[in-house]
């Protein structure tokens, strides 16, 4: 830190110390559970998750998807560049093949796996581990996310207990495709980011024990 | 016999004496020995709310001297009560001032919480009513629940009292607790916005086709009535005191 910076730092800290009010205690945060309409039973959490994500224009697939290839072909017939960030599906490219962060914009569909969903909000968690190339989360056109329904937690308090928030350089709670209400309060999808978000809820697609996870 | 001092807000004294009269008669009907100090003037709110703190001092001190010896001071005004109870800080401290701050009640509070009256057998009012409760009364005096606090039990002290008047019917209207736009000196300093708020409030109320508009604050009604008359609406306006006292349309 140079001397100007040190001066700024010290001036600010001195001013803060001189002005901060008498210390007030940190409250203890209760462990809130899902509201009275839902319990923490898995079936309830899945139902709540589906309801929440639908409000944000996310799409949920609850039936088994035995063949990802035919699934995405049917859903995205025009797609040419299919990026797979999961080991069990090849796609047409892998994230590792992207040479530059901005190249994620050429991806039509990206298949990812999320380690956690949140019933309260319909969010799915992604980090630099799952994405491998962070920009996929918003430069790709469409995302398909595999989520084991057993990994759906109740609420945001539960969600922020996930170790990613203390360990990863980038983690995002993503809830539906990008949107905006900035034009006259009318909600539109998409805005700048992904155009659609489809979550496949299926245990059948859980990672096999020897699937590797690359550290981003 | 319980004794109470009647505080008549300056604008009620001048423009709506019938509200002061109705308040007096109502309290007398309920067996209260009402004293009306002749030296009363104003609670200081117009100056204090304008930020002219210094210029409210003498008025507030005078008010404390006039009313500071009574166990109950009753006024048909939520805004004056709110000012005295929660913002009465321009004048010097004194035992009278402290007593006044503790013992001032809006009329509705006094009837509902102190006298605990719910029936007004001498009153009949077979009309549809749009009830307006002032922001001072709701958020300053907790006289009714507020829409912002969605989990609170819904209640309204003025409505509870008025429900004791035979024949009365309340109409529901949108934005029930949005401010009417009076706001004290705001009514003239931000005249355009104030008037628009008043016009909008009236429009929401009129959509529900009430026979009249009622409130426990004449300041709101003064503003709303001004807006209504300018638009050639002849809807009658009443203070809660008048209806409880047995006024007829």
């Amino acid at each position: 830190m140079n001397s100007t910076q040190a001066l700024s730092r010290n001036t600010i800290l001195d001013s803060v110390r001189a002005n901060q009010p008498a210390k007030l205690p940190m409250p203890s945060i209760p462990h809130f559970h899902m509201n009275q309409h839902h319990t923490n039973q898995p079936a309830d959490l899945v139902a709540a998750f589906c309801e929440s994500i639908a409000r944000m224009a996310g799409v949920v697939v609850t039936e088994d998807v035995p063949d990802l290839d035919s699934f995405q072909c049917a859903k995205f017939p025009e797609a040419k560049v299919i990026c797979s960030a999961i080991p069990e599906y090849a796609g047409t490219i892998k994230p590792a093949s992207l040479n530059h962060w901005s190249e994620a914009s050429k991806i039509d569909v990206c298949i990812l796996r999320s380690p956690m969903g949140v019933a309260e909000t319909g969010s799915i968690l992604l980090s630099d581990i799952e994405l491998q190339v962070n920009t996929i989360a918003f430069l790709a056109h469409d995302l398909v996310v595999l989520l084991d329904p057993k990994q759906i937690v109740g609420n945001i308090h539960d969600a922020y207990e996930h170790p990613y928030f203390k360990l990863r350089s980038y983690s995002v709670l993503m809830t539906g495709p990008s949107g905006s209400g900035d034009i006259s309060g009318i909600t539109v999808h998409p805005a700048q980011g992904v155009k659609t978000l489809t979550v496949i809820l299926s245990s059948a697609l859980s990672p096999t024990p020897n699937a590797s996870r690359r550290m981003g | 016999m319980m004794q109470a001092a009647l505080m008549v807000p300056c604008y009620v004294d001048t423009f709506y004496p019938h509200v002061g009269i109705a308040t007096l008669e109502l309290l007398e009907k309920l067996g209260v020995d009402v004293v009306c100090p002749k030296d009363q003037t104003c609670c200081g709110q117009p100056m204090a709310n304008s930020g002219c703190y210094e210029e409210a001092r003498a008025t507030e001190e005078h008010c404390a001297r006039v009313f500071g010896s009574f166990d109950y001071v009753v006024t048909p005004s939520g805004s004056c009560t709110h000012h005295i109870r929660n913002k009465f800080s321009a004048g010097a401290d004194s035992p009278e001032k402290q007593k006044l701050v503790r013992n001032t009640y809006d009329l509705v509070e006094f009837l509902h919480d102190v006298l605990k009256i719910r029936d007004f057998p001498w009153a009949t009012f077979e009309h549809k009513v749009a009830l307006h409760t002032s922001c001072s009364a709701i958020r300053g005096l907790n006289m009714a629940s507020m829409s912002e606090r969605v989990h609170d039990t819904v209640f309204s002290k003025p409505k509870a009292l008025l429900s004791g008047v035979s024949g009365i019917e309340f109409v529901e209207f949108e934005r029930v607790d949005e401010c009417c736009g009076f706001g004290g000196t705001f009514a003239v300093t931000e005249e355009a916005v104030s008037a628009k708020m008043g016009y909008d409030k009236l429009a929401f109320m009129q959509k529900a086709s009430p026979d009249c508009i009622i409130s426990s604050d004449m300041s709101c009604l003064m503003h709303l009535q001004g807006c209504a008359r300018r638009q050639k609406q002849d809807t009658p306006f009443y203070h809660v005191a008048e209806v409880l006292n047995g006024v007829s349309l």
Partner: protein
Amino acid sequence: MSTPVDQAKNAERFLADTVHEQRLDKLLWAMRMRRDAAARQVPEWEELRTLASEIKEHTLSNLSDYLIQFEAKATANGMIVHWARDAHEVYDLLAGQGSNMLVKSKSMLTEECEWRPFLERRGIRVTETDLGERIQQLDDQPPGHIVGPAIHKTTQDVAILFSKKYGSDPENEDAAYLAGVMRENTRPDILDARAGMTGANFVVAETGAVVVATNEGNADLSANTPPLHICSVGIEKIIPTTESLAVFVRLLTRSATGDRITQYTSTFRGPRKGAAMHVILVDNGRSARLGMKRFWHSLKCIRCAACMNTCPVYRRSGGLSYGSTYMGPIGIIMMPTFEIRKYSELPFASTLNGSCTNVCPVKIDIHEQIYGWREVMEENDQIQVVKKEAMRVADKVLSHPTLYQIATTTVSTALEVLPHFAVYNRLNAWGKHRDVPEATTQTFHEWYRTHRPKTNEEVRRG
């Protein structure tokens, strides 16, 4: 010495445009209703508000410790932490970041510090990626609302603007079409940019992380695509832990728009490989405000704009009427700390109704602070001389029973004298859109003297 912003006059002008005013009022009231509906679904809503308020008060009263903790953690994570006493201290960093174009996401702090004009004067092009900010940037207008900067514009306004700037179809007012136009035109800049600027909603001391919540993902775009990420944040944005973050995330979006969360709620804990991340901790008057006994609670603000949506005055004045970076109720209590004279009229742009205080997710006593600022304006001689004089006359009359009774005896005198405290602004302002109260034959006290003569004894006690 700057002239005070005449918010009342600006509001009057906005009101004259009935199309825009009615639309804004309806739209933002609907937003307030959505907030209510969302709060209803959370039984512990009021408990969350109390927690959020207490967490912020704890943090602000221990701010120096938390700032130091954050700096240590963030540095260990690979971020470079800067400290800026005011807007100017960032100039060198910004000017020297090496690229001639950068993308940015919405940050009220950057508006406050006026960094975009600074950069543009130095030939550095800045592309706003937030749709609302971009609209305002293209129209050369400041934001009108802190969550929806262009919320006061109709789809027609945007269609015409985009046709001028982007050559799109001026007749096509479809919001999805317009969003698409923006997306196409902004994406090349995003892909080419060498630097991105963001703000942050929260800064987590325990983990050295910054948290940004957007609907568009544009902060993620601005932060993750270019190789340089500059995140500037006010020092009051610190919260202690990830556990406390959950409380705020649950309150923020519900208060702002009624949704349960934004589409992208992201945590940045360090630069990605091969990139750099700078965090600028900005004071710009915040530490001084921390020492204001009556006003420091305004630092709890999480920028949700719930106060603006519920404020009946804001909805009828429009955000631009305040002439300030932050507008509406929160603006009224913050702006005078930046420039007391310029914003000396703002505390009077309120009816003190208190709705704002009761929607604020962090329980700032906004309307009480507004009242407090009115007193400060008097103490600092910011109240117009004419008004003060009128108030002095009022106090004299209202503290002397004899003068009061003389003044109120005849109706014509009363009408002249009593609203006299209003004369300082405009003559007959009351009567512009309203009738004055009807004439009465006698005052209450005159009636009382004749109808209750027995009880008309002077009651003097003590």
